[in-house]
C-alpha cells in the first residue's frame, strides 16, 4: 500500500505541475518607435465573441494614444498602427483565457512592428482584462527598451 501511496503522490505532483505555467513576453522592432501622434485601430479576431478588441483599444487609450476598434479590414485611412490579437481559452472548472497574443502591425505591409504574449495556466489564471493589460504593458515597455513585466 505504501508503494501505491508514493506513486499517487508522484502522479499528482506531475499532473499539477503543468497547472502553474506563467509566461509573459513583449518585443518591438528596435528600428521603430511609437509616437504620441500614432493612431491605432484594433481589428476584431474573427472567432472572438467577447469583443476583446474594445478592451484592448481602451488599454491603448489610457496610455495617451488614440485607438479605435472594429472589424478586420475596416481601419480608418489615418490609422498608423493596426492591432491584431489571438486569444485561446481552456476549460478547468470554469472557462478561462490561457493565452493571449497581441501584435502591432504596419498598415501598409501588414508586417509586425511589435508583439506580446501572455500564457497563464489554470492555477495562476488571470482575467481577460488583466491578460490584456499585461501584454500591452510588455509591448510598450519593449518599445521604450524596458524589461518586460514578470509573468
Amino acid at each position: 500500500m505504501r508503494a501505491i501511496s508514493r506513486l499517487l503522490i508522484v502522479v499528482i505532483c506531475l499532473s499539477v505541475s503543468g497547472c502553474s505555467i506563467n509566461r509573459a513576453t513583449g518585443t518591438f522592432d528596435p528600428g521603430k518607435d511609437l509616437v504620441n501622434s500614432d493612431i491605432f485601430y484594433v481589428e476584431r479576431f474573427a472567432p472572438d465573441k467577447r469583443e476583446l478588441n474594445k478592451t484592448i483599444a481602451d488599454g491603448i487609450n489610457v496610455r495617451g494614444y488614440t485607438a479605435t476598434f472594429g472589424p478586420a479590414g475596416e481601419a480608418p485611412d489615418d490609422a498608423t498602427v493596426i492591432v491584431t490579437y489571438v486569444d485561446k481559452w481552456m476549460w478547468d472548472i470554469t472557462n478561462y483565457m490561457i493565452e493571449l497574443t497581441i501584435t502591432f502591425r504596419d498598415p501598409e505591409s501588414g508586417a509586425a512592428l511589435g508583439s506580446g504574449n501572455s500564457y497563464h495556466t489554470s492555477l495562476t489564471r488571470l482575467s481577460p482584462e488583466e491578460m490584456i493589460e499585461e501584454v500591452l504593458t510588455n509591448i510598450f515597455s519593449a518599445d521604450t527598451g524596458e524589461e518586460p513585466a514578470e509573468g
Partner: protein
Amino acid sequence: MTDVRRVAAHFVAALATSTLLFAGCSTPARPDRMTSEAAPITESAEPPQIATVFVTVYGDDVGGFASHFIPLPRSDFEKALLDTIAGSRLFAATSDPAAADYALNVGLISLVVPQWSGTATLETSWSITTPVAREEISRKMVRTSSPSPFSRQREATENSAKTNIAAGLKWLAEQLGPREDQG
C-alpha cells in the same frame, strides 16, 4: 498484497516507458538544419554580391509552448540566418553598422504549431533601414507554412525556420538587387 505490488510494478513500467517515449520532445532544434541550402536564393553559381548588411534579430523564442512541438530559439534562428547569408554569396553580414550598406531587422513574431499533426506557420517581420540613421526603406511580413507531422516535430521547427529564411532573403534580394531597367 502480491497483486498490489504487481499493479504497482506495471504502473512504474508504464510511467518509465512514457517518459522514454516523450524524452524526444525536449530535444532542441538544430540551427545547422535551418540554413536554406536546400532552397537556394539564386540559381546562379557565381552570384554578384549585392550588399553588406548589419543584421539584427529581435524577439523571444517562439512556438512549442504548451505543445509537444519543439520551440524555435531566437539565437538559433539568428545563427541560421547569418549562415544562410554567408552561404548565399549575395550578401555579406557585418557586425559594424558603419561598414554596412543597409541594416536588416528581422523580428521573430510567432510560430503556430498544430496540436498533433498539420501545418506549422512561422511569421517574421523583415525591414531594411539605412544603417546609421535607421530610416526605413522597406518592410515585409514573411509568413511561411510547412508540414508538421507528429513524428517529425523537430524537423517541423527546423523546416519552418529554413523556409522562412529563404523567403525573407529572396525578398531582400528583390529589394536590393540590380533592377532590369537599370541595365
